[in-house]
């Protein structure tokens, strides 16, 4: 078996080299659905971070007890538990935000990013590595969500976090806060990331 990456490699990889959205194209549903504003995007990123950290730690702790053919059941069970906790917490302390995000918080259960990290990292490596992997991937995911959200909210409403940034004369591009805007923005940003990557590797 090839050498597994260390904790620091896992952490750094998650942020840019293996960014969940731009490099692995995982967890795209929330990336498209809740990025019409910075606030819902950040809330989603934090919820995913909590679930990912919790699931990675639990799975890593029990990794030696896992039966290969039952591992997905265990992953799903663990993820669902943490998602329910996140959902209830938001409903209790961020009631309006919880209503805005609606079913997208419960839908974190089917976010393939989390089950992917459980499978790739947490079920094979120690708790420390799994935790740094979760934190790195979460930062990467948060960056990706907020980059899409920043473009969409700024162009769509002239605001960031609800605070007006662009002059009042800015004609709000309403399409950017609607679903098509999500596809356009994500497509262009993905293209940009790939283009930068090609430039870089071309020079080397």
């Amino acid at each position, binding site marked *: 078996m090839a050498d597994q990456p260390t904790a620091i490699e896992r952490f750094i990889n998650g942020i840019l080299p293996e960014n969940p959205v731009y490099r692995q194209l995982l967890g795209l549903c929330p990336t498209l*659905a809740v990025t019409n504003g910075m606030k819902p995007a950040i809330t989603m990123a934090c919820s995913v971070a909590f679930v990912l950290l919790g699931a990675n730690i639990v799975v890593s702790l*029990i990794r030696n*007890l*896992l*039966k290969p053919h*039952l591992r997905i*059941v*265990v992953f799903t*069970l*663990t993820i*669902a*538990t943490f998602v*329910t*906790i996140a959902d*209830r*917490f938001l*409903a*209790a*302390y961020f*009631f309006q935000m919880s209503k805005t995000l*609606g*079913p*997208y918080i*419960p839908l974190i259960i089917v976010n393939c990013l989390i089950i992917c990290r459980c499978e790739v990292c947490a079920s094979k490596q120690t708790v420390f590595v799994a935790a740094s992997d979760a934190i790195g991937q979460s930062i990467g995911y948060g960056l990706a969500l907020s980059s899409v959200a920043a473009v969409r909210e700024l162009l769509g409403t002239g605001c960031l976090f609800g605070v007006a940034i662009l002059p009042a004369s800015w004609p709000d591009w309403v399409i950017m806060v609607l*679903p098509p805007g999500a596809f356009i923005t994500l497509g262009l940003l993905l293209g940009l990331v790939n283009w930068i990557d090609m430039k870089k590797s071309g020079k080397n």
Partner: protein
Amino acid sequence: MGSIKNSNLGQAWLVLLLSIVFSVSLTAVHLNLGPVIEENKTKETMKKIPVLVTGKDSSEYAGTFDISSRFINVDKNGITKSYTVYDAFDKDGTVAGHVVKATGQGYGDKIELLLGLDPDGKTITGLFILDQKETPGLGNKIVDDAWRNQYVGKSSDSPLVVVKGKSADENEIDAISGATISSRAVTDIVNSTIADVKPKIMIPASGNKMEKN
């Protein structure tokens, strides 16, 4: 030794154990957060009552009503169904309207809504969706103002009917395209709530009204 490992229990014990551990922790979370969530919903209900009774923006009517709550119990096939009813009173003590909290099955999960009725219970004065988990982009349009406002002003004499396309008759509601089930679910909840609550909507005796003071 090998037989224990290969038995069903030997294979599944971790899944079973985790289920128990997770259920216990979720129960603990629910016991702690459940009351806070209920309080949030009650606060939102109180904020919405003036809007639902008058049909006007909340900023125009904040704090001008006295609100008291009561339960209406309805026996249905031997099962007692309980509705929470909020009565809104003007400053001079006359009834301005009622708001009924009702729950029913939607397409995704339970739909919880508030239904505003005029003092006699003859006309619908407002509809607000408190909680829903309908399909994003389709069924969750039941929360949109434009769709909910169709109910405002409808008579409660005959049950409302969901139609596709353009609603023509007085008691017809336009279905959301792609979400007929969610539209029907809301309309069914409204219909059954009216049927259950209407006979008892008038505040029974003046004694009850005194109670709130």
